[in-house]
Structures are given as C-alpha cells and as structure tokens.
C-alpha cells in the first residue's frame, strides 16, 4: 500500500483542505513543522518520556476472561486506553500536539471537545507545559458533562460555551476553527480527532497509532498470532484509526468500526455517518457526512457525547470504500446493556463511547468460534458518564 495521505492530504478522494484562505499558510506551516520535528530524536524522546512517565503507557492488553466465558467461545482482549492519565486515549494525541506546539514556539492552545475528554486532555497538557488554554464546548455538552467542565477549569483552562447551531461537538469544532482564523498567528489548535483539514487527520493518526502498535506487539506475545477481529468505537475516529492503522496490511485481521445508532438508524436520531451518510465537505475535509439533499449538515444524536458527530475522519471513509474496514451501527440501548455487562463481569466501567465497541462484540459473539481472538479498544473509562447513565436508566439497573 502506498503511503497515504498524498501530498494534498487525500486518502483517495477523501481528506484535503477545505478552509478559508486565512488558514492555508498556517496549515502548510503546521505540516512542515510536524514533518520536521516528528523526525527529530529529541522530539521522540520527550514524547516517549511523557507517554510513559506521565500518562502511564504502555497500557495493558487485558484478557477479559469472565466476559469471554459469558459470551461464549472466543477470547476477548481489552486494550486498556481507559487506564491512561485523564482516562482516555485522547491524551496520546494531546501530549504530542502540545509538545509540537511548544517546539513551534506557540504559547496559546485551543481545543474543541464533545464529551470533554479531549478538552480535559488538552487542559492537562497545557498545564503540564505551561501554556494558556481555551476549550470550546457546545452549551448542550457543558450541561451533559458538567463535571468535565469543572475539571478543565481546575486545570486552569477557560471553557467557552458555544451557543451556535446544535450546541454540540460539531459547533464546538466550528467555533474553534473560527477562533483560530482570528488568532492564527500566536495560537496552536490542538484538534482532538482524526478529522479536519490536512495535516490533522494524518497527524492525529500518527499520534494515536501507538494504540495499535502496542496491541500488535502485546497480542503476539500473549497468543503468538494476530487477532481475528479488532473492534473500536468511532465518532470522528481517532482511537479507531490509531488501533486499525498498524493492522491495515494484515489482511487476515478484520477491522470493525462501531458508530452510534442512537435511537436506531431507521429513526432521525442517530450519528451513523457511515451507514446513513453521503460524501461531502465538512469542517475542512471531504468525507462521509450526515446531510440533507441540499448539503446542509444534519444534527447527530447519541447518548454518547463523544460519538455525537455528523462527520467522520477521511481515512475511515477511505477504508470503508476500499472495503478494508467495516463500519456497523450500535444503538444507545445496546451500548448501555454492554456497559452494564462489562461492569459486572470484569469490574470495569467503560466510557459510553467504548461501550459501543463492547456491544458490537456481544452481537458478534454467537458467530465466533473457540479459536477466535477479538481485541476491543477500550478507549476511555466511564466515570464521566455515571451521572447521565443514572439519568437514562432512572437509577435502575437493567
């Protein structure tokens, strides 16, 4: 497989840079800086040190024996990204972009956030590296994730509630881009997912591929062979692309991205961009998109704020079209059931986002055999969601 993206930031027809002219030189400069610094041994050393000593990598690849036995025959492993500092995979990318920002001489960083995980990760990194931080968050999400708002403030970040559009992740992303256009000269935009204009999808993938690189090594150690299925939840798709990327050449490994079906893909309330979307340009890149016939972007819906996004990373759209990865929808209810099952069988409370991946494996389990090995990317922990789960279930357990 040739190296993607190409020089225009394209993965096949997807990706690119669809942004106001004001940002073009900043994106070109960012790409050059990324190419320059990421090759430097001192950059790699600083990042490796922080990932290990600060965030606690590598994260375990845990054999979930009780879950496996409960579901049937296949062996199920969990890649424990939830054990990272700040509780999710988001810190991998935030640390890397933070270190890059520092090398580029930027003192101010901004970020968009949905569930608040990327916002918390960015606020954390800004505190660690002594930078000023502003986080844009849809007003709706500031309510759903009030605890994370306070967490970011504790870390010294300013949280800017976004009142435009549907007041969720997509609007936070729009507002972060607008702010960046106005402050492009002294501000670094730490984008949290594998979306947006080139070079972000490439950069975020490369900063998250540590998930898949470690998993590959760990499963070879534990089982002496590669897994049959690798499953990850997908909103914008950063944990999924980080997990998938090192396995792309291993054709025997099935890659499965799990998107949020909300109340069901047959309803109007879902975030199933791959199942129901069409090609379009959104937030700087060409990809699949939830939109109407006239190209107006539609609002997404999911119980999980991190998956509640009408777009998807361009590389995922490419992997879907070349049929290297498969993308399937999972409903709110299925994710909640999976969350509770994982709590009870393994004593692990997953994030609602990650619970979607668990739910997909529950659905697949009856068709798997005792030789099958499945890896789930457990992208984050569920502490942040406990309150909304309580509200959803009325405090009752299913």
């Amino acid at each position: 497989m040739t190296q993607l993206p190409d020089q225009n930031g394209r993965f096949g027809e997807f990706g690119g840079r669809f942004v106001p002219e004001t940002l073009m030189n900043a994106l070109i400069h960012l790409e050059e800086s990324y190419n320059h610094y990421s090759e430097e041994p001192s950059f790699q050393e600083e990042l490796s040190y922080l990932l290990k000593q600060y965030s606690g990598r590598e994260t375990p690849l845990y054999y979930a024996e009780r879950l496996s036995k409960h579901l049937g025959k296949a062996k199920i492993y969990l890649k424990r990204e939830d054990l990272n500092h700040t509780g999710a995979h988001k810190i991998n990318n935030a640390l890397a972009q933070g270190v890059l920002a520092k090398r580029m001489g930027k003192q101010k960083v901004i970020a968009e956030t949905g569930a608040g995980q990327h916002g918390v990760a960015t606020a954390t990194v800004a505190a660690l590296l002594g930078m000023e931080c502003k986080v844009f968050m849809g007003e709706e999400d500031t309510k759903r994730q009030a605890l994370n708002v306070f967490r970011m403030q504790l870390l010294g970040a300013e949280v800017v509630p976004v009142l435009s559009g549907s007041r969720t992740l997509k609007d936070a992303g729009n507002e972060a881009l607008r702010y960046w256009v106005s402050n492009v000269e002294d501000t670094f935009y730490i984008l949290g997912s594998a979306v947006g204009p080139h070079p972000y999808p490439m950069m975020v993938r490369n900063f998250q591929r540590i998930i898949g690189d470690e998993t590959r090594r760990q499963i070879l150690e534990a089982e002496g062979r590669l897994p049959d299925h690798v499953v990850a939840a997908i909103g914008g798709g950063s944990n999924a692309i980080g997990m998938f990327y090192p396995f792309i050449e291993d054709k025997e490994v099935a890659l499965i991205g799990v998107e949020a079906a909300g109340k069901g893909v047959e309803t109007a309330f879902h975030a199933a961009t791959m199942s129901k979307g069409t090609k379009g340009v959104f937030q700087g890149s060409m990809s699949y998109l939830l939109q109407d016939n006239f190209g107006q972007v539609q609002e997404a819906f999911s119980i999980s704020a991190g998956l509640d996004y009408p777009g998807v990373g361009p590389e995922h759209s490419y992997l879907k079209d070349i049929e290297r990865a498969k993308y399937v929808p999972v409903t709110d209810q299925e994710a909640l059931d999976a969350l509770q099952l994982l709590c009870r069988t393994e004593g692990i409370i997953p994030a609602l986002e990650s619970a979607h991946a668990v739910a997909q494996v529950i659905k697949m389990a009856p068709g798997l055999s005792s030789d099958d090995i499945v890896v789930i990317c457990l992208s984050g922990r569920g502490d942040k969601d406990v309150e909304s789960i309580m509200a959803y279930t009325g405090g009752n357990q299913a």
Partner: protein
Amino acid sequence: MNLIDQTFARLKENQQTALIPFLTIGDPDLDTSVEIIAELEAAGADIVELGVPYSDPLADGPVIQRASQRALKHQVNIASCMEAAVKARAAGVKLPFILFTYYNPVLQFDLERFFEEVKKHDISGLIIPDLPVEESAELSKRAEAAEIHLIPLVAPTSNERIKSIVASAKGFVYCVSSLGVTGERSSFFDGVEEFIAQVKEYTDIPAAVGFGISNGEQAAKFARICDGVVVGSAIVRQIEETIPLLQNVDTRQEGLLQIRKFVAQLKA
C-alpha cells in the same frame, strides 16, 4: 462579456469604486430578499453578493450566522437562492449577481448541473470561502467553460501565496481586510494598505476589500486604495434590526427605505 467585467470597466471609466453589498437570501424570507436586492441597487450598489444560508458557516461571525439560521428555518437552499436572482431580474434589477456559498451545497448539486443552473439564473460569479486554490482546480475549469467568474480570496496571511492565487483570477480579487471571520470591526490589521498594494502589483484585474467594513467612513477610506468595497455583516445587521418593520404591512416600505438609506451612505 461577463457582467462583472462590464461593471468594473464602466466604473473605471468614471473613476468610481464598486460598492458590493452582501445579504443572506431568505432572511427574513425570500420575497423580502428580492425586494431588498432592488433597494440595494437603488442605493447605489454596483454588484450584489447573494449569500446562501448554510448550517456550518465557518468563515462567518455571529451576525451572518444568525441570518443563516433564520433563513434555514424556512428551508431556503441554494436552488431557492438562484430563484431569488431571477425574480430580482424580473423586477428590473440590472446589476451583476454573485453567489456566495460554502462548497458543500455546490458539491451536492453535482458540478455539471450546478453551472447550467448558475447560467440559467443569470448569475455572473461565485465566491466560495472554504475552497482554497489547492482544491478548486476542477470547479475553476468548469467555471471558466461556463464563463462564470470564480472570485478568489486573498488573506493578510497569504503572503507568498498571493501571486499564484491571483495569477488566474477572474472578475476581481477579494482581499480579506482582517484576520478572522466576517463581522463589523472598528479597526483593521496594520499592514492592510501594503497588503492591497501587493495584490495590485501582481494583477491587473480589480481588487475589492471586505470583512469588517461597516460604515461610510471605512468604506470611503478603502475606496481610495482599491476598486471595490464589500459590506456584509453591517447590512445583514441592518436587515435584522428592520425585521419587525418588514414583517408589518403598514411599515414594510419604511423598513425597506431604512435599508436603502443605510446602504446609500456607504457609497463613496
């Protein structure tokens, strides 16, 4: 000859600067937009930008965002914006129309059919704020074939990109006067005059300035150093403030007159 070129040629002869107002089509409704276009011409506008309301207007500040939201409430889309152009023409408006739209609505139209429609609706140019030169090759080719001007934007941060952006420019070059999104401003970035001079050095086609120009004084200042002045948010805000008058039969004419007066004082 494209109507935009004719307009600039006439203005040059008379040593005048183009006044290029922007309005969001469908705010507060389509019929009113058509009437406002006529008022803009009566107030001295030379070219008008028809803004297609969009769900995610990345390059726009709060004023135009709100106008888009209002227009989208009654399902205004890119096709109905083109209809507005035809209706304005039928009502006697002579000035050239430019469709200002984000790229995605164009893309969903299918590029070939899009240009047929643009021509059919007597639109002379396009401004697509999220389509930099690197991404515009195909659209640009089709635009040229259809004799529709794709107006490029240059920004204060464009620097060495200016030369290649304006090299193949048609109609005029849109110089973004400040860092940031659309919206009224009291000041512009420091090097704005040198920036416009630099653009003019690389091209013979007209240069218009926009983003933030909100009153007659600012418009007059820029009129001295460029060939056209674009005013968007200030007019959209004026329309927003006039909505109560426009929506009442008894005060509608008064509302339209207020908009005309506001635009007339922008004309240098």
